[in-house]
C-alpha cells in the first residue's frame, strides 16, 4: 500500500525531529523564552493601562509566536545541514513531500507546545479575561498555527540553505503570512472581546480555507525546492 508507506515515512521524520529536539531541549527552551520576552516587550510598548493591554493582547500574542516561530523553522533544517544529514535524507526512496509533511507535523507540535507557554504568560501579563468561548479560541490558535507553520517550514527549506538565512526567512515569509495573521488576529480578538458582532466564526472559516491552500501549495512545490 503506497499511502501506508508514505505515512510511515512521515511518522519516521516526525519521530526523528522530535527525538533530536527532545534530547537537547535547548532549541525549545530558547524559542519559548524568546516568545515570552517578546510579550514582555509588547507590554512595555503598550503601557500599563489594563484596557489597552487587553485590546492589544491578540495581536501581541500572534506577533510573539511569529517572531519566535521563525527561529524554530530555520532550526528544523539547520540541525540536519550542520551534520550533513539532509542529502542522505533526500537519497532515501519514496516521495519527497513526505519529508515536508513530517517536518510540518513536527514543527506543529513544537509551535503548539510553545503556544501553550506563550498563551498562559500572555493571559497573565495582558490581564486577559478568559472568555466563555475558550474552546473556539483554542481552535483559532490551532488553525492559525497550521498556516504559520506550513508556510514557515516551506520557506525555511530555502532560506536555511542560503547565505543570510536570518534575514531572508522573515523577508520572504512575513508578507506571505498577512492573510493568515490577519484572520487569526481578528478571530482571536473577536473571541476575547465577547464576539459581539458574531464575526469570529466567519474569520475561522477563512482560516480553514487559507490553511488548505497554504498546506497544499507547499506540499506540491516542496519537491522543486528541496531537490536543488
Amino acid at each position, binding site marked *: 500500500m503506497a499511502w501506508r508507506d508514505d505515512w510511515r515515512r512521515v511518522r519516521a521524520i516526525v519521530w526523528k525531529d522530535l527525538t533530536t529536539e527532545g534530547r537537547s531541549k535547548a532549541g525549545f527552551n530558547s524559542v519559548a523564552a524568546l516568545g515570552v520576552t517578546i510579550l514582555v516587550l509588547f507590554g512595555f510598548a503598550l503601557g500599563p493601562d489594563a484596557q489597552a493591554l487587553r485590546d492589544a493582547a491578540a495581536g501581541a500574542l500572534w506577533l510573539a509566536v511569529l517572531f519566535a516561530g521563525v527561529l524554530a523553522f530555520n532550526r528544523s533544517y539547520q540541525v540536519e545541514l550542520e551534520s550533513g544529514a539532509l542529502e542522505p535524507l533526500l537519497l532515501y526512496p519514496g516521495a519527497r513531500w513526505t519529508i515536508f509533511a513530517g517536518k510540518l507535523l513536527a514543527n506543529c507540535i513544537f509551535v503548539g507546545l510553545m503556544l501553550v507557554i506563550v498563551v498562559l504568560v500572555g493571559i497573565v501579563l495582558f490581564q486577559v479575561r478568559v472568555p466563555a468561548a475558550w474552546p473556539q479560541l483554542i481552535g483559532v490558535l490551532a488553525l492559525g498555527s497550521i498556516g504559520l507553520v506550513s508556510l514557515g517550514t516551506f520557506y525555511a527549506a*530555502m532560506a536555511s540553505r542560503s*547565505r543570510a538565512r536570518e534575514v531572508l526567512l522573515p523577508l520572504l515569509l512575513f508578507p506571505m503570512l*498577512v492573510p493568515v495573521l490577519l484572520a487569526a488576529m481578528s478571530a482571536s480578538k473577536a473571541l476575547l472581546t465577547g464576539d459581539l458582532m458574531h464575526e469570529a466564526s466567519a474569520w475561522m472559516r477563512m482560516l480553514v480555507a487559507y490553511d488548505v491552500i497554504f498546506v497544499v501549495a507547499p506540499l506540491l512545490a516542496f519537491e522543486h525546492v528541496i531537490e536543488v
Partner: protein
Amino acid sequence: MTAPAPAPNDLPRPGYWPWFGAFAFLFIVATQATGLVTSIPDRDMGDLQKIMYVHVPAAWIMSLTFAVVLWYSFLYLWKQRENDDLKAAAAAEVGSAFCGLTLILGMIWGRPAWGVWWAWDARLTSTLVLFLIFVGYLAMRAFVEDPHRRAQWSAAVGIMGAINVPIVYMSVRWWRTLHQVQSSPATVDSWYVFNLRANAFAFLFVMIYFIRQRYVAARYERAAELAVQAVALGRD
C-alpha cells in the same frame, strides 16, 4: 550544473530594439503631454485628476508584469530553460519598480483627495504586500549563487507570491475598505478615457522595453560568469 559557455552569436542582438525604445519614450512623452495639456480640470478634483494618467496605467502595467513573472516561472519549472528564469527575474524587477511607482503616485493623490497619505484599504494594502513579496523575491536572488537553485527557488517564490495576492486582497477587503471601485468608461468623460488608454499603451511599451533590456543584461552577466568559469577550469 555547468553548461558550456554560449558562443557570442547565441546572445541576444539589439536588432530593432533601440528604435522600439526610442519610440516607447517618445510615445509616453506625447501621451503624457496630451493628457496634461488637453484634458479639462475635473469637476470635483480639478487638476488633481491628471495623476490618473500615471497612477492608473502604472497599476495596470504592474499587474501585467507580475502575470509575466508567473508565466515564466511556470515555464521554467516545466521546461527547465535558464532563459525563462532570467525573463521572470527581469519582469520581477520591472514590476517592482512599477509597483513602487503606483504606491507613491497613489499616496501623492491620496493626501489631497482623502486627507491622508496612507489608508489601510484593501487595494493599497494588497499592493504594498505584493511589493514586499517581490522585494523578498529579488533579495533571495541576490543571496543564492547557484544558478539552477536560484532559478528553481525563484520560480517557487514567484508562484506562491502570485497565489497570495488575491487572498491578501480578499482578507483585507473584509477587514476594511476605502478605495473607490473602478470607474466604468460609461461614467467618465470620453476624452479622459482616451487619454488614459493612450497612456496605458505608452506604459506597456516602456514596460516591454525595460524587461527586454534587463533580460539582455542578465544574459550578458550569465555569459560573463560562464566565461570566467570556463577559464578557471582551463578551457578556452
